[in-house]
């Protein structure tokens, strides 16, 4: 018996008892999950951090205005030591400057835009492709499944970095190439997860019931199967975003991502490698931004998973 059962049995008059009960809007499984999530303090703190990161990305021009330092502006006079080295954090440059005398604080704020843009867009793309493929493979089975499953195997065994390097050597590095490369290599795991879920849901009696009503395949997939695979997909996407962000940073670090001078966290880390002995802030602040972002998403993802986990929802009595 689930808690919901217990709770309802309490509030409900027996059938046939013609008492007018005020219309009760049901608590959907989504809302129940959200209510559980709200009680999870770690997840809530992570969510606040994520919101702050988004806010700083959106407010990046504001930061630039307030400091008076555009992201690409090089302050050779004020931003570099007489030796031409980066300057440590000060009242003017809170997070210090980089090797070209640019304001690291402003560049981190702008870098957040790239990281989040790639993180969100690539994740959405990944999920859409993965869900469609997984749904089709799991629901139809047979040849469709075999073909798609092989495609997934091929993608998962492809050497990701080699492919990325060779692709960039053809197209040249850009934001969209990064997004496409990342999505191309991530959808397969989503497809696998979705396919596994669909296989078990396909056997549920409610799917059989829908078929016995004469529902079309499209309708069954849309109304009966999809909503029930969404929970694990949502959990997976919150955990996928940080992976994508790190991957984007890695690509930028290797010079395969968004080309300079656009500020990206990976790119900044790349530029800092020559100076980490002299200028700790050059490494630490972009690194910390990356770490805090991925940590926040990961902790939030854990909370989402716990909120959706049916096991925490059950108790045995009887």
């Amino acid at each position: 018996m689930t808690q919901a059962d217990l709770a309802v049995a309490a509030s409900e008059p027996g059938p046939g008892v013609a008492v007018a009960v005020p219309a009760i809007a049901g608590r959907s499984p989504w809302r129940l999950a959200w209510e559980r999530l709200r009680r999870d303090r770690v997840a809530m703190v992570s969510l606040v951090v994520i919101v702050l990161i988004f806010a700083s990305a959106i407010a990046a021009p504001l930061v630039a205005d307030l400091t008076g330092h555009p992201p690409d502006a090089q302050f050779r006079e004020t931003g570099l030591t007489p030796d031409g080295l980066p300057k440590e954090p000060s009242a003017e440059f809170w997070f210090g400057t980089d090797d070209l005398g640019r304001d690291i604080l402003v560049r981190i704020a702008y870098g957040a835009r790239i990281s989040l843009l790639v993180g969100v867009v690539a994740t959405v793309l990944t999920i859409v492709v993965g869900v469609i493929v997984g749904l089709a493979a799991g629901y139809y089975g047979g040849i469709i499944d075999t073909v798609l499953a092989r495609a997934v195997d091929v993608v998962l065994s492809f050497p990701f970095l080699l492919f990325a390097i060779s692709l960039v050597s053809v197209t040249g590095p850009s934001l969209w190439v990064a997004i496409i490369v990342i999505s191309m290599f991530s959808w397969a795991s989503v497809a696998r997860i979705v396919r596994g879920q669909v296989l078990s849901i396909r056997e549920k009696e409610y799917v059989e019931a829908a078929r016995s009503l004469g529902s079309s395949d499209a309708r069954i997939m849309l109304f009966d199967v999809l909503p029930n695979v969404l929970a694990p997909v949502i959990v997976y996407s919150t955990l996928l975003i940080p992976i994508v962000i790190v991957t984007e940073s890695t690509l930028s670090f290797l010079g395969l991502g968004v080309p300079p001078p656009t500020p990206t966290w990976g790119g900044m880390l790349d530029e800092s490698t020559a100076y980490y002995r002299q200028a700790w802030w050059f490494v630490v602040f972009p690194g910390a931004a990356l770490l805090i972002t991925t940590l926040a998403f990961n902790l939030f993802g854990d909370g989402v998973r716990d909120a959706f986990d049916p096991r925490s929802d059950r108790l045995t009595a009887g």
Partner: protein
Amino acid sequence: MELLEVRDLHVSFPTPDGLVQAVRGVDFTVRAGTTLSIVGESGSGKSVATQTITGLTRGARVTGEARFDGDDLLKMDGEALRRIRGKQIGMIFQDPLSSLHPYYTVGWQIAELIREHENGTSKAQARARAVDLLKLVGIPYAERRVDDYPHQFSGGMRQRAMIAMAMAMNPRLLIADEPTTALDVTVQAQVLRVMRRLQVEFGTAIILITHDLGVVADLSDDVVVMYAGRPMEKADRREIFYSRHHPYTEGLLQSIPVPGHRVRLTPISGQPPSLVTPPPACPFHPRCPYAFDRCHQETPPLRPVNMSPTHLSACWLPLDPDGRVQARDELHRRRSGSTGEGARTDATSVTAAPSRTATSQPSAGA
């Protein structure tokens, strides 16, 4: 002789939605060599009660006492309890796969259990005992099948293997939690026969937890009927079936078809209660056709029915047969007189109101 005496057992589980009060004050006694059946529907607390006694409810708040041979099981530490479980108390469950390990042969598992509780038994001896036990519970070709893995057994054979395992140490008490619920009737008959034979042969006491009144009629001496964590009625088997007192017991018996007598069933109206906020006073009063004012004000204690020391009922209706019948008829009359036909209705009689139904269906050709 009393083998197990449970007194005033309370079990509750803290959950995010509140405290689930699974068992709220249960007493029962198991006499050596007899069968006590605990009957109830889902959520009645019948399984939780015995799981608590054997230390299998984790995270529960437990009060009360359970004296097994004089020692309180609820006060024992895990190690002492583990020694009693398996050796003195055997257990079988609805799902045999929950106690058979899939990666070891059935015989190995039984032999290992024997060797764990009996130092100095050789492997060969233990294996021979395992074969004997499998024969005892009616596994065909036991010498060969002792080396099979659980998945090679059918459902009924697995259940029998689990009984063999539970009986390996010749325990004095066997707790059987819905042992035949997942089985077909012909296999159920086999398993019940095995249990009955073991009881006769070894004098094992049995606690049988079930929702199936047919199984109760077959294999029990004493019966406890539970509802919402409380005992409603306690009596010996015949009294429960032929002179029950409690309206819940009556409701249960009227809910099942009687072979050969095709009359409309009389279900218990309404739905099972919440265990987080159980109904006050008598928990059955919201569904009871005979409930009156006192039933929702005061909790009825178990009282002897008809002066019988063995037949107890937690109900405020008069305890002598004539008084009970009169009181019920009187209540029934008053109810139907004051609130009209539909006052006490099982849900299905809603359909008897024709006004609603005429428009509710799309016509076939629409």
